[in-house]
């Protein structure tokens, strides 16, 4: 079976328009979440992480003068364009492309622009912009989309459909999703506090990101990072409530570890989902304990980015790649005191730390879960 390497990436988020800028701000514990006062999104101020429109327009002007794109499309195209500039050997035209998004341009429904609301319109936009040989496949699998898209990319390479796959993820902070999460009583009235006793819910965010998966490891000058295990499993329990036993997440972790040929003692760091809703974080703690991972240092990056839906697990995997390269972990922002029933080891300060293997997990509506093992390849 072919090996699959994570060789390059980019993140466009409220805390940076390049991966380096994002990592630097994570290191400074800078959050993108702030009080948003934007009547287009919500009638009252709320806490969320939005990409500044002026900053985006300016960055967009540097690559194109065409203004006929939506905000999300600009973010996605900018992300891929930046990755191409930084990686001249990436021949995007020949790559397989997976687009990860939960709602795409759904905010266009508000103005009656039905056509843009079809997720395939994003696929078409990306194909036309980069003049791609192959039509991008859109994956829409709730909050695990970004992580599952990496698994899908890995599987596409392993089934010999492609040598190289680019995964592009993105979602907007829209009235559409915010109103839904409010109706679920799931939005925090302060910046979210994953795994904390005082957590009351999520903060939403928006971002786009891209990652290049390749079967060839010589495409990168940086330390070589491989995705050695991936698995997804459904809870088969409830369409919105997380499983009380962490069933699907536990199965995903066990299967991903098995594929990677590892046991739980060999995991150095967990970059968890940690949405900061009472039930989600509790479920994760239970699953990690069942998997024997309760002592592994863990954080959630939702305190920095908010929940960016289809982008979140992709961004968190990209950050994991750089944590492996730089041998460092970041504090789990928003966390004060453990607020789950089973013990887990939440990271409370930035640390330099020898890292070899990272576990990335995500869980979402529909009872879906995903686990990825991201490893440093011994040179």
């Amino acid at each position, binding site marked *: *079976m*072919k090996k699959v390497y994570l060789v390059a990436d980019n993140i466009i988020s409220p805390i940076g328009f390049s991966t380096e800028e994002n990592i630097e701000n994570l290191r400074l514990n800078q959050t993108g979440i702030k009080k948003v006062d934007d009547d287009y999104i919500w*009638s009252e101020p709320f806490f969320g992480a939005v990409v500044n429109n002026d900053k985006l327009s300016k960055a967009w002007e540097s690559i194109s003068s065409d203004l006929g794109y939506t905000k999300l499309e600009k973010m996605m195209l900018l992300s891929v364009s930046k990755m191409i500039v930084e990686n001249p050997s990436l021949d995007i035209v020949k790559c397989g492309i997976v687009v990860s998004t*939960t*709602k*795409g341009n*759904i905010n266009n*429904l*508000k103005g009656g622009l039905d056509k843009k*609301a*079809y*997720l*395939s319109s994003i*696929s078409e936009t990306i194909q036309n912009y980069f003049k791609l040989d192959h*039509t991008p*496949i*859109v*994956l*829409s*699998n*709730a909050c695990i989309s970004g992580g*599952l898209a990496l698994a*899908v990319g890995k*599987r*596409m390479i*392993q*089934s*010999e*459909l492609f040598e190289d796959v680019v995964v592009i993820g993105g979602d907007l902070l829209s*009235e*559409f999703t915010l*109103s*839904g999460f*409010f*109706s*679920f009583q799931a939005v925090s009235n302060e910046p979210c506090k994953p795994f904390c006793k005082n957590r009351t819910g999520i903060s939403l965010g928006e971002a786009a990101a891209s990652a290049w998966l390749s079967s060839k490891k010589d495409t990168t000058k940086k330390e070589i990072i491989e995705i050695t295990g991936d*698995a*997804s*499993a*459904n*809870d*088969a*329990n*409830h*369409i*919105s409530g997380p499983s009380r036993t962490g*069933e*699907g997440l536990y*199965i995903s972790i066990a*299967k991903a570890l098995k*594929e990677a040929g590892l046991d739980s003692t060999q995991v150095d760091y967990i970059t968890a989902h940690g949405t900061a809703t009472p039930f989600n974080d509790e479920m994760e703690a239970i699953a990690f304990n069942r998997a024997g991972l309760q002592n592994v240092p863990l954080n959630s990056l939702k305190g920095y980015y908010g929940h960016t839906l289809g982008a979140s697990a992709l961004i968190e995997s990209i950050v994991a790649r750089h944590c492996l390269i730089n041998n460092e972990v970041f504090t789990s922002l928003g966390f004060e005191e453990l607020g789950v029933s089973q013990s887990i080891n939440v990271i409370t300060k930035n640390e330099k730390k020898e890292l070899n293997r990272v576990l990335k997990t995500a869980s*979402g*509506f*529909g*009872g*879906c879960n995903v686990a990825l093992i991201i490893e440093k390849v011994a040179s």
Partner: protein
Amino acid sequence: MIKEKYYISGFCSIKEKKVFKNGNQLYVDSESDNLKDFAKGIYKYLELKYPKFHKMDELCKLGFLASEVLIKDMKEVDQDTALVLSNKSSSLDTDRKHQESIQDREDFYPSPAVFVYTLPNIIMGEISIKNKLKSENAFFVTESFDAEFVSRYSEILINTGKASNVICGWVDLDNDKYDVFLAFLSKKGKIELTKEELNNLYNQ
């Protein structure tokens, strides 16, 4: 890569007020003039007793009913059976309903029971709950049914031991127009799995 042979051991479709299983017409309803009643008719025909069905949105009902037809005569479905579904319109049918509920700021009552269905992968959640499938799920959105991608992706799931069988297909609903096709892929069967064969069965 060593390629094992896989088979299409069953298939079904729901289109134009008819339900087909393995190519044979199973149910027809020329009376009902809306999707809700049509779906309820199939539910009754299958003699299902599953109150959760009535809470589903129409897209989920279609996918759920097709899965029930597909596995009707099987003794049990292995817990490791993966679901690989796709469509063109994602959950837009319900997205429009949610949008309607928030269109007017003076009359702003988003419904949690509607919002939860604004994700297409919920269909797979519903099928998983009913059949206790604790396996792989993936929902893809493509312009039309991509038999090549769906069959290759399903093959790799079985080939790598990530799933024992796969229920794959197309579950689309847009402005009352629906098109549903599911196939059961496994290591046993009479019809060998190829993209051409999967496409032929979809187009039947």
